[in-house]
């Protein structure tokens, strides 16, 4: 226990590493559909603000205008009542018009959401407690590959995400690129996304999915077609064999300890499927579904005590010595 605490002591140093803000925001938009959604949001919010102000002006006026005293409350001025009736009818008619405008506007933006093209890139995303499994499809089945919690997409191309819930309901949401869509067991969904600008966009599960709903983030990295192709080629290849002695020792430990029973590292005997594929884990920006930036230190911290960092997740605490921990983290960090 004390050893575990000691191992954790370098954690605070990791926290400020990821600096850039506003990368998961419906107001900071870089995807085709998110851009039009933002326009809609601004239009609707502005209209509603005007409506609210008008109501408040009427209310304040009603309260502050000079009132005749009302000794006999039941006596009502008929002329006043008629004028008020006209005012109320006009106000209701205005409400109906605003509402109709919103409904029509909403209908057309809804239709725009579901447009799909022919050369769309299809990516299958499965939501699991509490990480994302991402499958890319190549021209042939051997070109397919799997990764986790990080999705690379080419800029300017429509991506069709096939969304499948494998355990409970999750929701796929990258606010800077598009609205959300649920992943529901037994009901596959689709979501079309197009990034207009290169960048790294954070997404997060938006449907309550159990203990670690809060730590179920992922990243979408939009890059040029050339960079994307380069990345995809690298991802297709099996894992690199360790070159230095420490990483080689780490590989041995990884394969002989419980790690390999759940995780897969293509090109080795590790073929587990119940946990994220680690073939190129070193190349990913984050580990633990957006928990920490990938460094050797964060990998070591994560392996040393996953249940303190992300309580309730499915990674067990595997007892490792200090040396074992160092070499395993060296090995994983080397899996670029």
């Amino acid at each position, binding site marked *: *226990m004390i050893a575990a605490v000691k191992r954790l002591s370098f954690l605070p140093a990791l926290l400020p590493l990821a600096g850039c803000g506003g990368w998961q925001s419906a107001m900071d938009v870089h995807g085709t559909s998110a851009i039009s959604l933002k326009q809609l949001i601004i239009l609707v919010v502005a209209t509603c603000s005007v409506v609210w102000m008008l109501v408040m002006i009427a209310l304040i006026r009603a309260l502050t205008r000079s009132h005749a005293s009302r000794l006999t409350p039941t006596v009502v001025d008929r002329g006043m009542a008629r004028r008020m009736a006209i005012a109320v009818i006009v106000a209701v008619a205005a409400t109906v018009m605003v509402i109709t405008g919103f409904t029509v506007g909403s209908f057309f933006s809804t239709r725009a959401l579901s447009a799909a093209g022919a050369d769309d890139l299809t990516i299958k995303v499965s939501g699991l407690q509490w990480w994302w499994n991402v499958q890319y499809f190549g021209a042939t089945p051997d070109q397919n590959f799997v990764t986790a919690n990080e999705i690379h997409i080419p800029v300017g191309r429509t991506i069709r995400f096939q969304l499948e819930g494998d355990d409970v309901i999750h929701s796929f949401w990258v606010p800077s690129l598009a609205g959300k869509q649920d992943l529901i067991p037994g009901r596959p969904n689709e979501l079309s996304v197009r990034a207009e600008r290169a960048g790294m966009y954070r997404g997060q599960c938006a449907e309550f999915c159990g203990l670690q709903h809060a730590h179920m983030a992922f990243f979408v990295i939009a890059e040029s077609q050339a960079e994307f192709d380069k990345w995809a080629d690298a991802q297709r290849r099996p894992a690199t064999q360790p070159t230095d002695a420490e990483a080689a020792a780490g590989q041995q430990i990884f394969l*002989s*300890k*419980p790690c390999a029973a759940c995780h897969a590292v293509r090109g080795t005997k590790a073929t587990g499927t119940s946990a994220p594929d680690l073939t190129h884990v070193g190349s990913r920006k984050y580990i633990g579904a957006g928990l920490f930036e990938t460094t050797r230190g964060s990998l070591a911290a994560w392996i040393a005590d996953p*249940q303190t960092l992300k309580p*309730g997740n499915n990674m*067990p*605490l595997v*007892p490792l010595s200090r040396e074992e921990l160092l070499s395993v983290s060296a090995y994983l960090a080397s899996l670029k």
Partner: protein
Amino acid sequence: MRLIVLLICIVMLGGCEREERQLRLDPPIASALDEVKLMPNGISGAPPEVYFALNRPYETNAYNLDQGKRLYSWFGCSTCHADGQGGIGPSFLDGWWYYGPEMVSIFASIRDGRPHGMPAFRDKMTTDEIWQLAGYIQTLGAYSAKTAAPSRNDDKQSRPAENRAPAAILFDQGPTPVHPDQGPTP
């Protein structure tokens, strides 16, 4: 009024330990839990002291049983044992335990493996995972359902769920024969 409170309390006090979720097991306790004492023939024995100190969490705690069920599918138990009714490996539901229904025996079977094809999971699972899985398997084969037992899966159904004591429903006159030289015979 006071009667209602009392009644609810009685019903629930029995239940509260079943619901606690121990998400992290301290490594020293985990290694202590590994120290089971087995009889020379590998059947029966005594769990470590700490197991009782913890109040036998792997038999009665709903969260552990549920985790055990998850591990059953993640570690491919169904390849040989199917849904518990057996196949290549023995059935858990036929009313016959080759090595007895005690937790330590099941724990030892998983950790160390058994003759005729049961592999050892010592290097594939952590100690608490093995205990969780053992607790689940004991529940699966129990003749009377535990209150804390997990329920059916969101899958195709091939047998009644664990909380309905499938072993009692599917009890056979004899063991589903897998290896005639193994374990006791009727």
